[in-house]
């Protein structure tokens, strides 16, 4: 069995294990009873009301973690190839800051309502994220050509602009609102605001965008040769860039709107897996989806269990992923294996 296959088997087993553990761990219902309840739920059985509530909360949160992991890892992989920059992550186009400003605005203005199942925070975060990306596109596109260099620079500037808008909002609102905004900016799956309907909708968007990115795996391979060579090998480069950046941005914006900007998944997962899977994007994107989902699910399970066990406030999962991700990235860099 070669290294690539072994990696996929390990990732698959890991993901299954963490999903199973997440579903049965936690307060309210013991592991054995939880396991029976989950099996019964998936078999289409009816659970008693109290058991059902506990399990649904856990599975919703697990579902959100999986959406976030899949979206960020696949978007990060695609952006690194398209922008031809190893530092690219899903937030490099200003999505986190744009989404953060939208969420901050909705929070401090105390906006109610929203669209369908989604709250004003979700909607404005999504709108802010896409506004930031569109601003970068408008700046970087001239005469029918989207310059990825200009897009990178524009993304950083748009991000800086929205970050200062967030700070401006924070500077003028009461401390209670500041804390709410601050928690959102760290990226959190613990919020009761995450409902099964929202997770289902987000999952649909992520699966759709992820599917398109998988179909674009071979063009992503071509982009590593530079845009001119990709063009001469038969790729419609301009159409491709719009499609791939659009899918990556949409997937990222939808999970940011759901759970805030959870950091480092989008940069660590592709780099770590490229070392074992190799540079070809079809296996890499597939592995990144599994690995990203597993990483966020593990992180969320850990922060949840430690909070229960030590009876401390829950650490936002975004803090955990960055705490683990940054040193891991530095270790890879040190070995120059990326």
């Amino acid at each position, binding site marked *: 069995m070669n290294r690539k296959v072994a990696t996929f088997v390990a990732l698959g087993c890991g993901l299954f294990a963490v999903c199973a553990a997440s579903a049965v761990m936690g307060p309210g219902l013991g592991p054995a009873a939880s396991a029976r309840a989950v099996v019964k739920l998936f078999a289409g059985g009816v659970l008693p009301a109290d058991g059902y509530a506990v399990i649904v909360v856990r599975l919703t949160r697990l579902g959100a973690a999986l959406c976030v992991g899949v979206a960020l890892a696949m978007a990060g992989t695609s952006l690194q190839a398209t922008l031809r920059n190893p530092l690219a992550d899903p937030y490099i186009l200003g999505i986190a800051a744009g989404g953060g400003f939208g969420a901050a605005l909705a929070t401090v203005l105390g906006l109610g309502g929203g669209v369908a199942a989604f709250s004003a925070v979700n909607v404005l975060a999504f709108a802010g994220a896409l506004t930031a990306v569109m601003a970068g596109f408008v700046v970087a596109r001239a005469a029918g050509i989207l310059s990825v260099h200009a897009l990178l620079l524009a993304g950083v500037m748009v991000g800086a602009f929205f970050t200062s808008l967030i700070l401006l909002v924070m500077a003028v609102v009461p401390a209670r609102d500041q804390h709410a905004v601050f928690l959102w900016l760290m990226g959190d799956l613990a919020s009761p605001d995450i409902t099964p309907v929202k997770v289902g909708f987000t999952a649909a968007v992520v699966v759709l965008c992820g599917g398109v990115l998988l179909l674009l795996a*071979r063009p992503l391979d071509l982009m590593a*040769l*530079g845009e*001119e*060579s990709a063009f*001469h*090998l*038969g790729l419609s480069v301009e159409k491709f860039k719009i499609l791939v950046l659009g899918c990556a941005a949409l997937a990222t914006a939808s999970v940011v709107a759901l759970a805030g900007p959870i950091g480092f998944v989008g940069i660590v997962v592709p780099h770590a897996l490229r070392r074992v899977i190799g*540079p*070809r994007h079809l296996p890499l994107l597939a592995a990144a989806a599994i690995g990203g989902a597993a990483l966020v699910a593990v992180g969320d399970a850990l922060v949840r269990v430690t909070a229960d066990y030590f009876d401390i406030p829950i650490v936002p999962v975004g803090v955990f992923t960055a705490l683990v991700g940054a040193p891991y990235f530095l270790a890879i860099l040190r070995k120059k294996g990326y």
Partner: protein
Amino acid sequence: MAAPLVEALDVYFSWPTGPAVKGVSFAAAAGEMVAIVGPNGAGKSTLLRLLSGYLKPDRGDVRLAGRDISRYGRRDVARRAAFLPQYSEVNLPYTVAELAMLARYARLGPIKRPTGHDRDVVAEALELTGVADLAARPVSQLSGGEFQRAVLARALAQEPALIFLDEPTAHLDVSYQVQIFSLLKGLNGREGLTVVAVFHDLNMAAAYFPRVVLLAEGKVEADGVAESVFVEDTLSRVYGCVIKTRTVEGRKFIFPELQH
């Protein structure tokens, strides 16, 4: 008479910094080997990119096999014409075989899996360019000469009828230059591969290319057999320095007179 394989009809192109190609007409028939030469800024690389469809002319038409090149799909063009740039980047550590297999995109598209035929074509391209032994090596570990041959293998794996080369050997030593041009000449003779190449090295052009196009300031200054284009007066005027030619062992050599 069949239409030329590739032709430019009175094309103009300007960069933001100024005009580069000012009314060039050029045609290459199937099976020709044409060198495009001229001083820096003469518009050689720009013309090559107009002919390959990468740049769109401001005025005039470029035709591939008799049809406007902008009316082809990208993959349609790539099935007929390959392009070997002066500098190639490969950002990720693909193996030599993976790199050449990327050329099959023109035929496979994004989804279809490579067949035995695709693998045969790739293997043959690696064999021809002498990098078959390096097939499993990441391109990031190749020397300059090996890398340029791997990129040529990729171009050949497109199975093109026409190949454009932009100073493909500018940073290779003499032995690699000879290897690559002998290979192209062989493919030209055996399979009728049409070659259109931009050069700085006039002696290489004279040695390998039956036809030479001399560009100066965005226009065609001379077009014909190397013997008629490489004339001392014309070259001296176009390059702005005194250029001499001598025939040694039946080959024409071109060299500048030294200034003291």
